């Protein structure tokens, strides 16, 4: 009776439940968490906004100087991401030419204010 043997074996050993939050589940490096953008690498090309399937990235004003291919250039736009609506698909990270927009390791923080989730 394989079921009986398995039952008694399980009874005498530890449960496999990981008691979150006292123990954390190991998360791999490739995990697709929330979106973050580095302002000093982003050149404002709006490619991320064009490929986003859920249309959560909009380009807003953000004038700054960025170093790109050895030269300092003045850029005007930066992406604004609505983290509530983002589906964490990773297409923005895949199509970004400078690698500035990327998906972090953690999923998302929560907040009491709606504006917290728009970066």
């Amino acid at each position: 009776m394989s079921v009986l043997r398995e039952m008694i074996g399980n009874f005498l050993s530890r449960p496999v439940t990981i008691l979150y939050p006292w123990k954390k589940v190991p998360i791999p490096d490739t995990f697709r968490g929330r979106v973050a953008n580095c302002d000093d690498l982003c050149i404002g090309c709006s490619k991320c906004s064009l490929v986003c399937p859920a249309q959560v990235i909009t380009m807003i004003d953000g004038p700054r100087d960025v170093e790109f291919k050895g030269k300092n250039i003045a850029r005007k736009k930066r992406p604004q991401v609505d983290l509530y609506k983002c589906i964490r698909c990773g297409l923005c990270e895949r199509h970004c030419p400078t690698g500035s927009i990327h998906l972090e390791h953690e999923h998302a923080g929560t907040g009491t204010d709606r504006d917290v989730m728009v970066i």
Partner: protein
Amino acid sequence: MTDPVYILLYIFLFPGFFFLFAYAFFLSYLDRKIAARMQQRIGPPIFQPFADFIKMLGKEVINPHGVDWRVFDAIPLIALAAVMTAFLYVPVTGASPLAFPGDLVVVLYLMALPTIALFLLGWLSRNVFSAMGGVRAVTQLFIYEVPFFLALLTPAIMAGSWSISEIVRWQQHNLWLVFFQPIGFIVAIVGLQAKLERTPFDIPEAETEIVAGPWTELTGRRLALMHLTTEVSLVVGSALMAALFLGGPILPWTLSPQWLNGAVGFCLFLAKTLAILFVLSSITVATGRLRIDQLNDIGWKYIASAALVQVGIVLVINFLWVTP
């Protein structure tokens, strides 16, 4: 023995209703914990059944349209009262002070009342699922009740009395009845599993088929009381098995201080009911649910014939033992 204060304390405090409820919650917790550990989960903490009871008492009671709500309120109370009364005749620390010849029959009758209550609830609910569940409950009652009664008849035949406390006293001077009647013990355990409506016999309450059957329209305090009835039935059933087959709370010899005798008997009672609970939980974990027509097949073909065989063997033993 006839001291009214003693009787009142026995009925209401220990080992009466207060101990009964505490032990019912504890056995329900242990049942869920054993099942969880066998499935490699953690299981609930110890106060979970009590917390469920308190929570359900506080929930809203919903009366379906056109249902007689007074009857709906009364039926869980009747079922609970029946099994609570049945516990008074089962020996817990020694012989029960309320014992009388024939109390085995009374206990078995009282334990059948919750199933009838479920059928009534199902029929009165004006709901297809509940009606089907109620019909299934009564069908199951017909199928398992005959072998169950037969299997509990044989200890009475062997001990020569219809009183549970007398049977326990008989086992004090001879061996435990399980050694004389192993087939009867197995049939009784299977019958108990069917009476308590646990897997593989939880056909009336089949969640994936008929949405909780007769329990569908129970809410709030009615559900709390009906659930408590199930838990108390578990205690009464295990205690009955422990008393009839495993020797009950009495040692083969009596110890000198009266209170020590009672304490040791109580520890024996706990150990034996926990052993029966472990067996019942293992059966619940290891099997899936049967269909009602398959239960019909198995019940009449195998279980009832095993019970009849056991009765025949016991009659032969009695004849051979008594006559020479």
